[in-house]
């Protein structure tokens, strides 16, 4: 049976108390914030609890918020069994972002976490194979950070060129 956002949130609060933050938003975009170290436990519970059964991690995105000083990892969860959805958010400090891995809960998280590590520099504690996935192994920095500065060249290859339209 599909549960609404309030019901899902109440079930989480009942189990984890203050580890799960207050309910924000509504409908498909209803979300709650979770402490970075506890996300794996929460995920495990969401997947195995018979009333929740979030069998699918639909999306995992990292967002850099330099003003707030944190990187937010957003987990979009979906249950094919019950056809309900919920969003979890985890805020990790920008200077040393560490989040517990959920790759043992949902296999899809393996590659998604590698992508977040590659592009945003988030370390997923306990990930079995955390290495770059899209960028070259020796690429400096993490491109999706807001303060990333593109290097002028990479192995002698310039990353920009003069505009042909310039007089």
């Amino acid at each position, binding site marked *: 049976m599909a549960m609404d956002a309030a019901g899902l949130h109440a079930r989480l609060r009942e189990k984890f108390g203050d580890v799960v933050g207050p309910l924000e938003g509504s409908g498909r975009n209803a979300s709650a914030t979770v402490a970075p170290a506890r996300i794996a436990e929460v995920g495990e519970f969401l997947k195995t609890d018979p009333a929740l059964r979030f069998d699918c991690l639909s999306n995992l995105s*990292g967002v850099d918020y330099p003003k707030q000083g944190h990187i937010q990892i957003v987990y979009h969860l979906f249950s094919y069994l019950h056809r309900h959805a919920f969003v979890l958010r985890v805020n990790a400090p920008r200077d040393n972002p560490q989040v517990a891995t959920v790759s043992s809960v949902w296999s899809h998280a393996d590659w998604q976490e590698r992508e977040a590590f590659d592009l945003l520099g988030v370390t997923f504690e306990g990930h079995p194979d955390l*290495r770059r996935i*899209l960028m070259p192994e020796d690429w400096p920095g993490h*491109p999706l950070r807001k303060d990333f500065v593109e290097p002028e060249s990479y192995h002698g290859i310039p990353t920009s060129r003069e505009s042909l339209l310039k007089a």
Partner: protein
Amino acid sequence: MSLAGFEVEVQRSKDDGGVVTEDMTLSMGPQHPSTHGVLRFVIRADGEVMKEAIPDIGYLHRSIEKIAEKVGWHGFLPYTDRVDYVAAMFCNHGWSLASEQLAGIEVPKRGEYCRVIADELCRIHSHLLGVGSMAMDIGAFTPFTHAIREREYLNDLFEELCGARLTFHYMRIGGVGWDLPAGWIDKLSHFLDRFEPLIDEYDRLISFNKIFVERLANVAPITAEEAIDYNLAGPNLRGSGVRYDVRKDEPYSVYPELEFDVPIGTGEKGTVGDCFDRYIVRMREMRESCRILRQCVVQIPDGPVIAKVPRNLKPPAGDVYVRLESARGDMGWYVVSDGTAFPHRCKIRTGSFSAISIVPKISRNLMIADLIAVIASLDLVAPEIDR
């Protein structure tokens, strides 16, 4: 021996005859005709049997998500064409949907119908390439020429619709760029009249050909649980017997007004979720797309095709996650706005990215030749993996 980024270990083992054998590490790609773009597999094989196949991706990474943060809401639309250039309409549609939801824009009815027509044509367009190149990868060349021939008619239709044959940029935030040209609907009906019998011909030619079926049936079956765990989407998920289609289950646009079925894999030639099931689901989806198009042709109302949208769009701060059914399945767009003229973040979750991540799991103990069938049956499109 070293392959960049991979620890390669040479393992020696003695078989019963006392002969020392060695695992062979093969690099398949990045330039390989059946990897459907630039991607590489590092294969550890014992003779013809693979012990593992590890995908190495990123060759086509253009950081499209970073570009979104630099070019503004309207400016990003042409870039979305390049996310999945085999099915560009869906990427246009995804970005438009996300922006519209953030900015609270309502699309006129005729605009929605134009979008659905474009989407479904694009689905046929993409599936034709998918099934055609799959047959070619497996060794049957003729079906590919048939598929490309039909695709050419579609290209002409698209060219008339939006001026482009591959990277369409047809949709805009708030609707579509142009109304259907005069007489275009008749050409579309004519195409459908011609195309539907050709699906039967294609079935006679290849789908149930004994050699073709033998190559695909029982190869690399994916159970429904695995498919959901790895977040497979679209025909790959439905091939495993999960009846889920975003158009039906989380409807968007005018899909609730249209009737169509969602074909799933039933293991009719082997095991549920094998390569054949994924193939046949695509064939059947093309028929359903034709059915949707026929309804659209009759139901499309008159009126404007695009809503009034400010040129300097600044959606209110907030985030949204939209899902739509692309040719490669459930495509997710997570878009964050901070209330300025530039998106704060855009994350695109594509069907091919999920599909390739399951390859190491299902390729264990397969023949190398079967890996080709697996890649083709997952309908991987490399730019969509790397973005």
